[in-house]
């Protein structure tokens, strides 16, 4: 259940390193179908779904090309790059890379309670958002912290949770 492999990463570590960020970039927007935001997160049914990269950006153009033209439930995906994040940033998915202006932990704290799916990366530090990328067995995997997500008003599909290495469930929540 918790096993996670990346089929396209069949090669050695060197190759894995070169593919790590394109995979993570794809994952970022692919989370969207499996996440449910509260209605207040969107101004309307057609307003765009923002995928934000906060601070350090390891993806570059890879993310833009991956997201280009994609839609999720009628919401067009857009990429926004911000130095810092706040409750009013309007980010639905936020990859918090951290920067000198705002550390990962600060970034997480800044959007606490706002409808944002926070994504952190083991290679960027230990603080964890709702989803935390790790590399295990040369494959990109992730942990899920449902508590954090629920605190932000975001619910994560059980389908996604079944793919996670570990899930921190909210109290009284699902198994």
């Amino acid at each position: 259940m918790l096993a996670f492999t990346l089929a396209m990463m069949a090669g050695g570590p060197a190759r894995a390193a070169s593919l790590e960020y394109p995979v993570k970039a794809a994952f970022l927007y692919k989370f969207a179908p499996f996440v449910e935001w509260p209605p207040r997160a969107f101004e309307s049914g057609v307003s765009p779904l923002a995928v934000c990269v906060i601070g350090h950006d390891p993806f570059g153009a890879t993310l833009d090309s991956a997201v280009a033209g994609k839609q999720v439930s009628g919401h067009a995906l857009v990429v926004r790059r911000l130095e810092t994040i706040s409750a009013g940033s309007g980010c639905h998915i936020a990859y918090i890379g951290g920067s000198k202006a705002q550390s990962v932990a600060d970034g997480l704290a800044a959007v606490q309670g706002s409808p944002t799916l926070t994504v952190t990366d083991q290679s960027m530090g230990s603080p964890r958002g709702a989803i935390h990328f790790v590399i295990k067995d040369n494959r990109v995997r992730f942990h899920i912290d449902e508590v954090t997500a629920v605190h932000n008003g975001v619910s994560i599909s059980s389908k996604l949770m079944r793919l996670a290495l570990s899930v921190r469930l909210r109290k009284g929540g699902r198994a």
Partner: protein
Amino acid sequence: MADPAARLSRSWRFVPLVVLAAAALLLLSGVLAGLYGERLYRAQKAREVGVQAEILAVTVSAAVVFDDAATAQEYIGALRANPEIEAAGVYDATGALVAGYHRAGAALPPRLPTATPPVFQGENLVITKPMIEAGSVVGTVHVRSVLEPLSRRFSRYGVTALLGAMGILLLGVLATAGAVLRRANNELRQRARALSAANDALRVQIEEREKAEEALRQSQKMEAIGQLTGGVAHDFNNLLMVASSGLDLMDRTKDAARRQMLKDSIRQAIDRGASLTRQLLAFSRRTALKPAVVDLATQVEGMRVLLDRSLREDIQVQFKFAPDLWPVEVDPHQMELALLNIAVNARDAMPTGGLIVIAGQNAPNIDEGELSGDFVRIAVTDTGGGMAPEMVTRVFEPFFTTKERGQGTGLGLSQVYGFSRASGGDVRIDSELDKGTTVTLLLPRSTKALTSLEPDAPEKEPERGQGRVLLVEDDDGVASVVGEMLRELGYEPVRAASAAEALVVLDQQRPFDLVFSDMVMPGQMDGIGLAREIRRQRPGLPVVLTTGFSEAAAAANQDGLRLLVKPYRIEQLAAQLQAAMNDPRAAG
């Protein structure tokens, strides 16, 4: 014909059609049911596999999205538990295979860009379902399921098919049976019709034959009358010649002896004439039989002299009578005549002489048609030339004769026949050419006591009487002669020409002592009527009737009236009149 069989067969005529239609309907419905079942099965299978594919799509979609082949493989592996699914695969949005499995002999398509409607490939069902997340197609699921083998499906339908086939078979048997039954019915009806037609034809033939026989009888009668006319006329002419010439000669001679001889010859001619008419009447059964109970042995023995005189010297006669011969009730004179006729025929059959055997024996318990009971058999056998079979059948016909014209009347054996039948018996004839002939008389046994036979009154002087006699006779000639005879006997005759006139005379004249009346007379009243009327009006007045007709005689006998049969001689007339006058019944 509106008989039930016809109606039944008419209704049966439609059975094969109905059966065929029913069979066709059954077959069609069986095929439809099979097709429908097959379609239902396929639709249900498509639904089942479709649901499994959908479940797989939903559960595996995330794994496909995040390229988690291991997880996808795990999910797909769960389908292995279902033996019907021989292959399953998940493909990502680009159509590339993410995970999958297949059993031996099955294969997965290497790429599957889009989902398609369910496809049946032989015994396989291929279902592809899109994986949709948030309105986007994120991949495709491919499930290949094995259908229940066609053979097993068909074996299931086979039960239905078998039932249908049995039903058709049954209907076929029924239809065949119906056709056979109908054919049998038709045949029966045709046979009945043929039988009825044959019956009709037979009836027509019988009617025609009866008509032909009637015509034949009529023509035979005419022929007989012709022969009678010739034969009787010939015989009577001879007799009349004797009488006429006798009378002529009597006028020309005074010699008493010669006159007596002439008188005798005239008398003989008249007797022969009377005998001839008696034979005719006996044959026609119009003669009054005077039956008496006789012992045949005695009776026939008494004929020896007569036979010897009638036959020739070269013919020997033997009598063979059983000692305990039963008595019979017959007219003795007729019987003698019958035997004489048979003997004469036998004589004529033996022109060079021979033997005649007259045998008598009892024939108890005969049961042959009309004849039943005890009989006495009299057989007359000769050693003559015999007869051909076709002649044997004709010898009893009246006037059938093999003799020269003038030699016989052809009435001889007819008299024998008439006598035997009138006596309640029968006559048979057995003859073989060149061997001889046997004529057998069968006469019924009588249990009565023997009658003492009065011998014929000899030529004695008739008794004279006296008194007034009313003679009722329509024939002037007869009236004249009988009147003379009555006067000769001493009576005083008064003649009346009819019964009516007789009654008037009885009323108007002095009383009469006796009425002597003919029976058959013209007018409303005949002799019997007159006798009855007289018996009513004048019970004491004796009446004697006379007739030549046997039927009238029988009627008179029935009434207990005295009867004198014509022709009679003066002695008989005298005796009858004396007896009537002395009868206590009439006198009282």
